């Protein structure tokens, strides 16, 4: 192997460090995320009216629901990119699937912590085996398992393949889990908790709906930003790993 060629490629990862950090897309995403977050705070605390029966506690809702939305979106993205990976076998798809799953797990943690806090304040119990809550819990375990599959040892394409397969069947499992749990619950606790307070009274006040939509948009931007950031980070890591591999080869020769 010619050393010159290696030399030529040597500064590549370092040179790529700066453009990734300040690319235009990152800036746009960051800006819109920050703006949407601020707007969300304005709408949550100043614009939306305070709920009559639950009071200010109801504002947990504006964090809980968008997190759940982002978590499901993230897992759906993982599912789509898993399928794409199995068809096209491009590493970038796998990276997207991985980063999305990780973000999904983070937001599921938010859902699973804010959920019980809200439940404690409005239903006076930390945990109800309510279909959505339970499904989210199982979803959480499924995607933690997905991340475990990724921690396996071995070459990347094997891991990526196995993870993609698991991502697909894991996501396919979710609707069945939901129906099973809903069915199970309706047998023993008919309408104790109804559909959960988020839908009580057949709808929510318009100002609340606006605040909710703004928060959902803000969280979606946050997700997009994190995804973009995470993917560019993973790409860089892959490059560095490649480079290390090359360097080792060169040292061995």
């Amino acid at each position, binding site marked *: 192997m010619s050393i010159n060629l290696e030399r030529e490629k040597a500064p590549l990862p370092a040179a790529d460090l700066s453009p990734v950090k300040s690319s235009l897309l990152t800036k746009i995403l960051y800006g819109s995320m920050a703006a949407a977050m601020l707007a969300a705070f304005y709408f949550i605390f100043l614009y939306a009216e305070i709920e009559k029966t639950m009071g200010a506690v109801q504002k947990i809702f504006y964090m809980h629901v968008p997190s759940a939305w982002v978590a499901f979106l993230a897992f759906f993205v993982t599912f789509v990119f898993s399928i794409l990976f*199995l068809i096209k076998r491009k590493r970038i798809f796998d990276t997207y699937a991985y980063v999305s799953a990780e973000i999904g797990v983070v937001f599921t943690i938010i859902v699973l912590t804010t959920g019980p806090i809200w439940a404690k304040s409005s239903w006076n119990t930390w945990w109800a085996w309510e279909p959505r809550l339970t499904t989210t819990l*199982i979803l959480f*375990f*499924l995607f*933690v*398992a997905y991340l*475990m*599959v990724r921690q*396996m*040892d*071995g070459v990347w394409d*094997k891991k990526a*393949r*196995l993870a*993609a*397969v*698991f991502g*697909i*069947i*894991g996501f*396919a*499992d979710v609707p*069945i*889990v939901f*129906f*099973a*749990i809903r*069915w*199970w619950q309706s*047998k023993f606790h008919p309408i104790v908790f109804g559909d959960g307070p988020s839908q009580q009274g057949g709808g929510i006040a318009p100002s609340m709906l606006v605040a909710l939509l703004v928060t959902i948009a803000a969280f979606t931007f946050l997700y997009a930003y994190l995804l973009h950031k995470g993917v560019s980070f993973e790409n860089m890591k892959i490059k560095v790993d490649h480079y290390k591999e090359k360097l080792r080869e060169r040292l061995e020769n």
Partner: protein
Amino acid sequence: MLRAALTIAKKDIYSELRTKQVLGTMIIFAGLVILVLSFAFDPANNTTKAVIPGAVWIIIVFSGILGLNRSLVSEQRNDTMHGLLVAPMEASSIYLGKFMANFSMILIVEAVSIPFLFLLFDFKVNGSILYFILVLFVGSFGFIAIGTFLAALASNSKSSEMLLPLLLFPMTSPVLIGVTQATKIILTNMEKLHSAIAWLQLVAAYDVIFFVLCFLLIEYVLEV
């Protein structure tokens, strides 16, 4: 394809009958689970009867996971998996063969351990045995179908014994919910048979969906 699958299943069962290692372990383990259950729930107490339908599935799940682990990891030891993969057959027949072997093994374990459970806890079946066997069959089918698939997936890892339960339990939760409910109804309260049948249909639907999915996806798992 079916012939190749049958050959693999036969090979697995023959080698199992030669050593009786896994089957013996599974049955002993099932017995130990029954023992632990008797500590946890006083057998003399009448309310214990309510947990027996659930206990049936605890036994099946825990002893099943032992067998599932072995069936794929044993192929890894001398790298016989590689031999199977380069043999002139599809990956799906390997899966099918492994599935049949595991399924027959879990059925044997069930046939031995569940009568023991009923005997030791002095449980009188108030329902239909025939339906109970049907539930066992449908439930074990789903559990083993997805279990064999995930065992193949996990066997690529060095710590597959630890990985498999983590993958398998959340994935099979609909089956477990369905069969425990159906078992409870069938063993104690036959009047609600229609809802037990509804549960069975749910589990059967799951079985079909995931059996097909596993069939389609196994070639990605068992790639050389």
